[in-house]
């Protein structure tokens, strides 16, 4: 809402102290987005009369204009606009004038012929938004006079307010003035309505068929209308508030809307066929709106129809073309109505026709401001139509659904003080609320007083006690309510899971991976390209773009895209991770009706192999106490089937480690191997790691020996280790695989695995015989797996 300082002063003596007014508005919740200076007079621009115009054979785009600036002399000016004719009054920026854009007017001319100034357009003077031609001034101005003082234009400013949706009243000057008046203790009054006696009765019959959607409909006939331009002051005010002047009828309607937050609509009374009917559309109906478009209507659209039931307007949204005001209109039928907000909102949103009027109906207009709006419209139109006749006999249909003039809301003093932390009394509260027109009807209860507050009809937002608490707080002043740090009765800490998540991040970062945050929305096909199914993916019902219409079920597609991006930018050492949510649809009958969303961690490195991925897993599992078995028998889709393993605990799959499937890499145009570790954190992070109990360190000597086996490729090193560990028993305190060798001296389908074993007892020195026995047990166990001891 744009509030023009001078216009605001019509409602009360607010003055021109911009700083003071801005601060007051902000403190009331009327956020001042910007303050713009307007109508700043430009020194040196005078009223001049066009004497004659002349073309020059060598200048195609400009012509020569001869003007009189009041001293009877003929001045010559070059001009690029051709909209003036001899006798017109136009603004002349004389030599030496500095224009708002910084240009200094000099005699510099064209073709060696000097120019004695510059003729100005409305936009150059900041007076209109019209840039097309020279501003033609009213005929009655005195030649040579300063244009700004001749037009009575004084420096002004516009406050652009961000009005919150709970304050519909502040979409009008009157509402802003009320709040501001209460804050600054300035008495306010709504501007004058029309006092001229009403003419002969002229009634147009109004029938409301949908009584919930339209609760009041006033139809007043006014004759003696001459459609034309508005007076300059009206046009200026509208322009400064961001509205384009159209004609005196439409402008008067817009003025009333800005002042009183009451939209009105003027029909050409001659074009109205036998009365008005307000009803909802029938399916299949259409209407040609003011903008010439044919609108297909739905049954939720509220229509203004004529007496023959033909639609002539979309209620509260846009009028119809057939009954529009024209240059010939002499009698207008003025609609001033109260429509229910959400219905108007639905139609306006569906048709993309949100207007100043529909926005106001949507948020709420004062159901009892109709009479004032009608008389104010007449007052403003009479400025340009002195013979205006406002006919008596206006229809004014009110339905039971019309909100009452006052709503009574109870307010407990103790409750107010409990929420605000204040010690306000019944009297304090009454005084504060009275300033904004909220009357205290009664007070009950001596010990625990409760007030009955009459809320006026222009404040539909104040429905309950807490709304009144907020009103008191606003007008008491938020900054008067104090600042007290509450003593938390909880102790601040991260939960064990949150602490573990931080620890986990720390390990991942320490391994050199940087954190990516890819888009969780995928394009159709992204999952397939990653080797994953789209069957369990959820679609967005209203995606922004088709390429972002699927919710991810894995972090891999996003990281592969990030890899592609970095490769294309020639990055080295591409090591990335993401820790984030994935959203597979899961089972339909989930308890909370939500998908199986869970937190996942994925690590990737370009040009690396499973060796690195396993190193990541080893570090993570040792620091974080993650436990799982490597299962190469079943590999998650999208991983290299022969160089990856599932991390599982029985039937539960905790993740996958290894390399990305070469087919996936090819589809993603990645020409390098990618090491990958993916973990489902929903289990791993919520586990509380077991606290280790101290075991005494053995004081007895240790026997160390190495065993090198030739093991067929079909047997995993893990299986051999498991067999050795079992065979070694409690005395086997260290078992490490420290060398793997393939090549000379070995069969093609086998490799050499060398293990270091350390035997030690906690309570004695092992005898040679014992060591030999254990060693033999190990050899036997290995032999069962086809592992042959090498010499």
């Amino acid at each position, binding site marked *: 809402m744009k509030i023009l300082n001078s216009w605001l002063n019509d409602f009360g003596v607010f003055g021109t102290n911009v700083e003071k007014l801005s601060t007051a508005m902000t403190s009331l919740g009327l956020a001042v987005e910007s303050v713009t200076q307007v109508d700043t007079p430009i020194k040196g621009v005078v009223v001049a009369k066009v004497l004659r115009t002349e073309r020059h054979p060598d200048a195609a785009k400009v012509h020569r204009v001869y003007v009189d600036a009041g001293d009877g002399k003929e001045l010559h000016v070059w001009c690029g606009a051709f909209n003036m004719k001899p006798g017109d009054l136009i603004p002349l920026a004389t030599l030496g004038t500095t224009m708002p854009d910084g240009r200094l007017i000099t005699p510099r001319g064209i073709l060696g012929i000097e120019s004695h100034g510059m003729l100005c357009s409305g936009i150059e003077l900041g007076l209109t938004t019209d840039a097309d031609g020279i501003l033609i001034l009213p005929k009655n101005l005195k030649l040579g006079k300063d244009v700004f003082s001749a037009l009575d234009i004084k420096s002004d400013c516009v406050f652009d307010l961000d009005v919150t949706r709970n304050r519909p009243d502040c979409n009008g000057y009157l509402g802003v003035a009320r709040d501001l008046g209460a804050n600054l203790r300035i008495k306010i009054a709504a501007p004058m309505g029309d006092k001229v006696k009403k003419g002969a009765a002229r009634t147009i019959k109004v029938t409301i068929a949908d009584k919930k959607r339209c609760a009041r409909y006033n139809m007043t006939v006014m004759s003696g209308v001459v459609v034309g331009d508005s007076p300059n002051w009206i046009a200026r005010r509208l322009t400064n508030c961001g509205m384009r002047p159209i004609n005196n009828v439409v402008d008067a309607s817009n003025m009333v809307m800005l002042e009183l937050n009451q939209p009105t609509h003027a029909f050409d009374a001659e074009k109205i066929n036998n009365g008005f009917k307000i009803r909802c559309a029938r399916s299949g109906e259409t209407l040609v709106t003011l903008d010439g478009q044919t609108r297909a209507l739905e049954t939720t659209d509220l229509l203004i129809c004529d007496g023959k039931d033909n639609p002539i307007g979309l209620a509260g949204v846009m009028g119809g073309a057939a009954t529009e005001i024209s240059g010939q209109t002499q009698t207008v039928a003025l609609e001033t109505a109260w429509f229910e907000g959400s219905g108007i909102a639905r139609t306006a949103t569906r048709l993309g026709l949100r207007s100043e009027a529909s926005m106001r109906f949507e948020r709420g207009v004062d159901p009892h401001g109709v009479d004032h709006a009608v008389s104010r419209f007449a007052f403003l139109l009479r400025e340009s139509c002195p013979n205006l006749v406002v006919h008596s006999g206006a229809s004014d249909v009110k339905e039971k659904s019309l909100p009452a003039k006052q709503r009574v809301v109870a307010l407990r003093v103790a409750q107010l003080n409990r929420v605000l932390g204040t010690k306000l009394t019944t009297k304090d509260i009454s005084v504060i609320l009275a300033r904004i027109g909220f009357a205290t009807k009664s007070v009950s209860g001596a010990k625990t007083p409760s007030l009955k507050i009459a809320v006026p009809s222009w404040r539909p937002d104040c429905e309950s006690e807490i709304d009144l608490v907020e009103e008191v707080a606003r007008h008491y002043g*938020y900054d008067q309510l104090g600042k007290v740090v*509450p003593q938390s009765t*909880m102790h601040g800490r991260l939960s064990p899971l949150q602490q573990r998540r931080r620890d986990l991040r720390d390990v991942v970062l320490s391994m050199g991976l940087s954190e990516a945050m890819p888009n969780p929305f995928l394009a159709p096909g992204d999952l397939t390209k990653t080797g994953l199914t789209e069957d369990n993916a959820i679609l967005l019902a209203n995606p922004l773009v088709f390429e972002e219409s699927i919710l991810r079920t894995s972090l891999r597609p996003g990281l592969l895209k990030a890899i592609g991006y970095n490769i294309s930018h020639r990055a080295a050492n591409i090591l990335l991770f993401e820790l984030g949510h994935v959203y597979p649809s899961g089972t339909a009958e989930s308890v909370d009706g939500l998908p199986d969303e869970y937190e996942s961690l994925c690590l990737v490195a370009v040009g690396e192999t499973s060796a690195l991925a396993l190193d990541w897993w080893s570090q993570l599992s040792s620091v974080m106490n993650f436990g799982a078995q490597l299962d190469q028998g079943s590999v998650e889709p999208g991983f290299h089937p022969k160089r990856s393993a599932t991390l599982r605990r029985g039937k539960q799959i905790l993740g996958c480690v290894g390399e990305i499937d070469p087919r996936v890499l090819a589809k993603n145009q990645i020409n390098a191997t990618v090491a990958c570790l993916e973990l489902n954190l929903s289990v791993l992070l919520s586990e509380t790691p077991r606290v280790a109990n101290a075991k005494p360190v053995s004081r007895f000597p240790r026997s160390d020996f190495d065993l090198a086996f030739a093991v067929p490729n079909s047997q995993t090193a893990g299986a051999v280790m498991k067999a050795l560990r079992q065979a070694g028993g409690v005395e086997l305190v260290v078992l490490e695989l420290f060398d793997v060798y393939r090549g000379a001296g070995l069969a093609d389908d086998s490799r050499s695995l060398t293990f270091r074993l350390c035997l030690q007892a906690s309570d004695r020195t092992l005898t040679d015989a014992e060591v030999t026995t254990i060693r033999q047990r190990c050899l036997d166990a290995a032999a069962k797996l086809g592992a042959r001891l090498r010499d």
Partner: protein
Amino acid sequence: MSEQNTVGAISQAIETARDSALQAIKSASDLDALRALGVELNKKESQLNSFKSDMGKLSSVEDKRTIGQLLNAAATLISTAIETRTGEFTELEISNRIARESLDLTELLTQRRRGHSHIVTQATQRLEDVFVGLGFQIAEGPEVETDFNNFEALNMPKSHPARSEFDTMFLEYGEPGSVLLRTHTSPVQIRVMKSWKPPIYAIMPGRVFRRDTPDATHMPVFHQIEGLVVDRGITFAHLAGTIEAFTKAFFGDDFSSRLRPSFFPFTEPSAEFDIRRADGEWIELGGCGMVHPNVLRSGGIDPEEFTGFAFGFGIDRMAKERHKVGDIREMYTNDLRFLRQF
């Protein structure tokens, strides 16, 4: 030859032998030669040691003492000389080794280093730490939410006009319009109220979604942090006090805060909160207010017994401003050149 002369001759011979031994020590070429020399000089048959047997030939105790002292002094001199010379050789050897071992450490500087946490994560953790210090715990919730938790429970029933401002992304899951990507972290408030019960001092950071076309200051996927306090006797002054304490703890002591009236369906009285930089400029930070009685009821809390406040703001913007990132979209390109700066 008189005894006197004999003593004189022996003394002379000892001095000569001593000097030649010292000369030999001095001119030993290396540690091995010196060691060999030492062995040689210690032998019974060595020249100096042979004088010991000569002492028997002397009759006078006086003479024996003279020669004995002379021999001892010579032996001490020689052993000291060997020790010194050995020290010199050892020192030389070590310094030669040190010289040989010379290393250009700049050859060893590698590119390998710690990874970089995303600046949004860094900001989130800093915020969490500040609130943990103020006695808050951290609550989390799912990013896919029900319409009920995201809107209805927050005092925005189905027809509420404010819903249109959230540009919600709905999912094809369950009943049409019933499951969505949360538009704010506020649904976690409802979850916390239901599961924790008062007293509640909680913050709720997380990812949120709006159907906004990306531009320099907006992303459809971004992050918010939200605070919720519900306890007996909580007032508007506690809200203002918490915002002030946070402002000073997070931004610095030369910052201050203010609340000005605003509107949100889930709080009343509602406010926007601004922070004031040391240079006097006000920056709009977020929204806050006293939890609306209807929202407390949705969370199963009796508004006649408890009061509460809530506040929330964007995390991405904080990260963006802290690191002077020109365009918020840059934060989400996952370009390592960008990530590795922080």
